[in-house]
């Protein structure tokens, strides 16, 4: 642990871009795989919100976040089997923003999988994204694990097709998180039917990992920390013994266990979001299990942002939050308790003052 932290401090001090070679960021060795017991790890970058200002100008702060994540993912050791981008490459769905992000992400020396975010979608309903990155939902198998990628940020057709005078206006409305005129995310009937068929081919003891942008459970509707048909999606996943959902959107350390399903959020490279229960004018359902991340220090531009890496062990996921300007966190599935737990801070008496959110 100490050695690992020293390496990170060294990395942070030296500047990641200057270092070309392989530097061990984490050395976790895990064994996993129902049919093919090999070690494997994957990297996760998400929510970069690259914002086009004009011409060749983009918001510097958000660019820095994604660049740094790309550099660090390339230095993972053991090398990840693949890297996932968890959605919201763009801020307002513009081609310029998506292209700018893909240009940066093209430096990753790994196979990539992409998840659709609402900021990528609501300008042209995902057309440009799809033309560059392929289908919005699909599944793949890797070393005995069945991975499912969903587009969970769809919403009611009336809102999408009839409500707004222009595509640009629709995008702006969806881009505002606290928008009283917003509309809840959903996976939708067509995709749920596809998921049911897709899962019908999979044996019940195969570990399932679902990658979505929004959490596939309900935290706070007012910020769309929410998926309207979450229960129906969960019901499709319920027959499987080991299920993990990994999602973006919330820009924070967040984890939960509902029945057989473990949920983990990933970090944003751009900015952190408050926990929904710190908004005192509305009720929300922040999972009690989550030990919050430290309250963000606005004076450190990259604080409370970062990226995430995952190990698969015994059909369950261990999550490593790579936090810039802060101590890294590991939330691992505890086989005895049957739920994810922080490996350091989970007991009440181990928590530190900056984790108090209010």
């Amino acid at each position: 642990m100490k050695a690992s932290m020293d390496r990170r401090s060294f990395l942070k001090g030296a500047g990641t871009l200057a270092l070309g070679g392989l530097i061990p960021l984490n050395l976790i060795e895990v064994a996993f795989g129902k049919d093919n017991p090999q070690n494997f790890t994957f990297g996760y970058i998400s929510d970069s919100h690259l914002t086009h200002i004009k011409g060749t100008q983009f918001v510097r702060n958000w660019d820095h976040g994604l660049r740094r994540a790309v550099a660090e993912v390339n230095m993972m050791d053991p090398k990840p089997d693949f890297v996932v981008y968890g959605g919201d490459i763009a801020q307002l769905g513009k081609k310029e923003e998506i292209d700018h992000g893909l240009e940066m992400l093209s430096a990753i020396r790994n196979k990539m999988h992409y998840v659709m975010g609402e900021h990528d979608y609501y300008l042209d309903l995902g057309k440009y994204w799809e033309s560059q990155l392929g289908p919005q939902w699909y599944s793949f198998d890797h070393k005995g694990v069945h991975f499912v990628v969903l587009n969970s940020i769809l919403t009611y057709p009336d809102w999408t097709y009839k409500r707004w005078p222009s595509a640009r206006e629709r995008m702006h409305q969806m881009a505002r998180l606290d928008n009283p005129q917003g509309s809840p995310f959903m996976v939708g009937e067509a995709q749920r039917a596809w998921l049911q068929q897709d899962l019908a081919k999979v044996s019940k003891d195969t570990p399932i990992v679902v990658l979505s942008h929004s959490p596939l459970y309900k935290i706070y509707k007012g910020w769309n920390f929410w998926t309207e048909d979450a229960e129906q999606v969960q019901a499709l996943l319920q027959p499987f013994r080991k299920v993990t959902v990994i999602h973006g959107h919330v820009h924070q350390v967040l984890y939960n266990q509902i029945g057989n399903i473990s949920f983990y959020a990933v970090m944003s490279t751009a900015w952190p979001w408050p926990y929904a229960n710190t908004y005192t004018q509305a009720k929300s359902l922040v999972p009690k299990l989550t030990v919050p991340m430290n309250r963000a220090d606005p004076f450190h531009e990259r604080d409370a942002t970062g990226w995430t890496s995952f190990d698969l062990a015994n059909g369950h996921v261990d999550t490593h939050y790579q936090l810039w300007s802060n101590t890294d966190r590991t939330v691992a599935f505890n086989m005895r308790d049957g739920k994810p737990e922080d490996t350091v801070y989970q007991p009440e008496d181990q928590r530190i003052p900056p984790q108090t959110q209010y």
Partner: protein
Amino acid sequence: MNYKHTRFFLSLTLGLGLGLAGSVNVQADEFTKADLEQWQQDFTWTVKKGERLFHSPLGSNTVSCDQCHPNAANTHPETYPKFQKQLGRVATLGDMINWCIQNPAQGKPMSLDDPRMIALEAYITYERRGVPLAPGKH
């Protein structure tokens, strides 16, 4: 807009009324339900203006306050003034708003009595209504 016109005519009418009455001696602590409603409207208008500003670019790079602070969450207006270790002094909410305008939003600071600053403070504080004051709290 309509409301502003109404207020103008209201003052005009009131002024004429007082003029006609001549000898009415208005006491400082005398106010009516209509006054209270009027002041509340004025405050609400300022909160709404603050909400608009909070969701608009205030600097040079299109970044707005709500991007990090939906519903002004994680701004903790009830804890100011407080010692801000990064500034090395006791700071007000306005100081912190200016810090955000200058840094993440890459803009120019406002004077603390700028009507836009007052509107931003009104919105941020209104979204935190009901939370006990806790000056100095970290």
